[in-house]
């Protein structure tokens, strides 16, 4: 494993980040703006432009891999779709999307076929948005039942019809967001055959009913994983429509809870969160387990450089000035690369259905690219 690529962009939390398909542009949320950073060299990003329009904290950003359109959502209850303007480079044309929600929007993701996007919100609503040609605007359709609390996360099934949502009522749910005229009829899957809008294909509670922080479909779409505030990972293998699932596997860990997770292959999940590190899980329908941390011990170079010049002088100086007897080793740094909670884990590079690199962003203002 090569060393992770660390980009310390600024000293502010990053709620969400997204790379463009060619990985030359990085979009990060920073307070009420989205900053676009362009890759200047293999190791450095430089700030290139800023998307202004929201007037409250931005909670989600997603770049569509093929069309290059950017969608953002914010606590001001709005979403914008930003399109690159063909005439001037680095300028973006925003289109306001009326979500018709009365609480903050919490997360946003494009569907894999990029014709729709979904926004989770604190209004116990999952807004599915699609473009209506005849009126030339984005229309929002609400998924309401049976959500009973804030939607914290959402994930699209590869068929662009099924949508998973994690909520603070402790449930992870799978819905159909089939829109007539936009979507083609999806093939029958383990989640169901006939899927009109707002069909609830699955509803899963974790054992402690803790908040669900993130949900994700496996690459094939036949399994669902979610992580909750009880520091556990739950993987669900459905058996078929209207049947109890084939297997629900819950792994409780000794770590702090995970904020975000990602399938890297059909049998592997990578998760990161309040423990500031990235962890790997492996398993299948028989059972799952925590394999270990992706980064090696001391990946954050804690005191590695400073520790060398250890001497009696340094020791007494540090006892005198800082009141510690540990010598010159700096113990104010965490041993992980991220120095605070990791908010988002995203796919950075994948080939042949296997993810080889992932990117993470956190409260410490860092974006890190990991080689798995």
């Amino acid at each position, binding site marked *: 494993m090569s060393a992770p690529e660390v980009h310390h962009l600024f000293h502010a939390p990053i709620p969400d980040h997204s790379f463009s398909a060619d990985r030359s542009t990085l979009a990060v949320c920073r307070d009420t703006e989205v900053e676009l950073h362009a890759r200047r060299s293999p190791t450095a990003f430089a700030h290139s432009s800023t998307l202004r329009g929201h007037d409250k904290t931005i909670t989600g950003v997603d770049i569509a891999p093929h069309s290059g359109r950017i969608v953002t959502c914010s606590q001001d209850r709005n979403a914008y779709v930003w399109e690159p303007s063909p005439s001037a480079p680095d300028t973006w044309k925003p289109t306001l999307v009326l979500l018709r929600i009365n609480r903050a929007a919490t997360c946003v993701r494009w569907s894999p076929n990029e014709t729709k996007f979904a926004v989770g919100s604190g209004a116990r609503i999952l807004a599915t948005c699609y473009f209506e040609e005849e009126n030339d605007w984005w229309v929002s359709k609400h998924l309401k039942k049976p959500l009973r609390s804030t939607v914290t996360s959402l994930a699209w099934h590869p068929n662009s019809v099924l949508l998973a949502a994690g909520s603070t009522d402790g449930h992870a749910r799978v819905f159909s967001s089939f829109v007539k005229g936009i979507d083609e009829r999806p093939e029958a899957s383990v989640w169901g055959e006939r899927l009109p809008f707002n069909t609830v294909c699955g509803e899963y509670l974790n054992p402690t*009913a803790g908040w669900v922080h993130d949900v994700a479909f496996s690459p094939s779409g036949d399994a669902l994983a979610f992580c909750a505030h009880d520091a556990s990972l739950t993987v669900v293998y459905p058996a078929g429509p209207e049947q109890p699932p084939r297997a629900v596997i819950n792994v409780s860990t000794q770590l702090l809870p995970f904020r975000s997770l990602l399938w890297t292959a059909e049998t592997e999940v990578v998760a990161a969160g309040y423990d500031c590190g990235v962890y790997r899980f492996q398993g299948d329908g028989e059972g799952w387990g925590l394999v270990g941390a992706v980064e090696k011990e001391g990946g954050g170079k804690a005191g590695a450089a400073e520790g060398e010049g250890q001497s009696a002088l340094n020791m007494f100086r540090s006892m005198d000035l800082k009141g510690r007897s540990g010598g010159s080793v700096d113990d104010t740094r965490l041993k992980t690369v991220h120095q605070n909670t990791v908010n988002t884990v995203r796919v950075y590079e994948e080939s042949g259905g296997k993810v080889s690199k992932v990117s993470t962003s956190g409260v410490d203002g860092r974006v890190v690219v990991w080689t798995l």
Partner: protein
Amino acid sequence: MANINWRTINIDAYDPDSAFNFDLTTLTPAVQPVSTSDVQTLSGQIRQLVRGGNAEGALQGALENAPYGADEQGKSIHLSVVTEVLGQIRQAEMTPILQRLYQADGGSELCDTLMKYIYKGMGQGAPGSGAASKNITPQATGFSQAGGRNFGGEGGGQSMSVFLSWHEKLVEMVGPGSIVRVMSDRRTV
């Protein structure tokens, strides 16, 4: 009109979609209701195990049968039994017992339950003080007797030190994950 305090009106009650008009217990894990007399029978059996010298079996039994569905009285009876059992186990035996407990099938769950009782016990405060006096039960005397064997009246401090040393040993084993689970779990003890 003037004497209505608009600020105290619960507007959620008028919103049919509001969580206020919704039974939230349907969202939590289903728990079996347990009657107080059942809890009492169970605690008698556990005490018998302790008297027989099988404190480890007693602890395991008490944690496996945690009465999530009992009312406040039943829960406090069970807490005092668990506290008694914990107080009976010597410091040197704690780690080996926890190791065996953790490695057994479903051990992680049992350790989480133990963590719940440790926190609940710490939250109870000293027996006889204002905080605890409101839920005095016949078993509460057993609680203070078990804790106060050495220091007479200062039983609270004694049981607190028992909780603290159990907590230290338990966190070594199960990490902060268990603490977070105790806080997020809706099945309270």
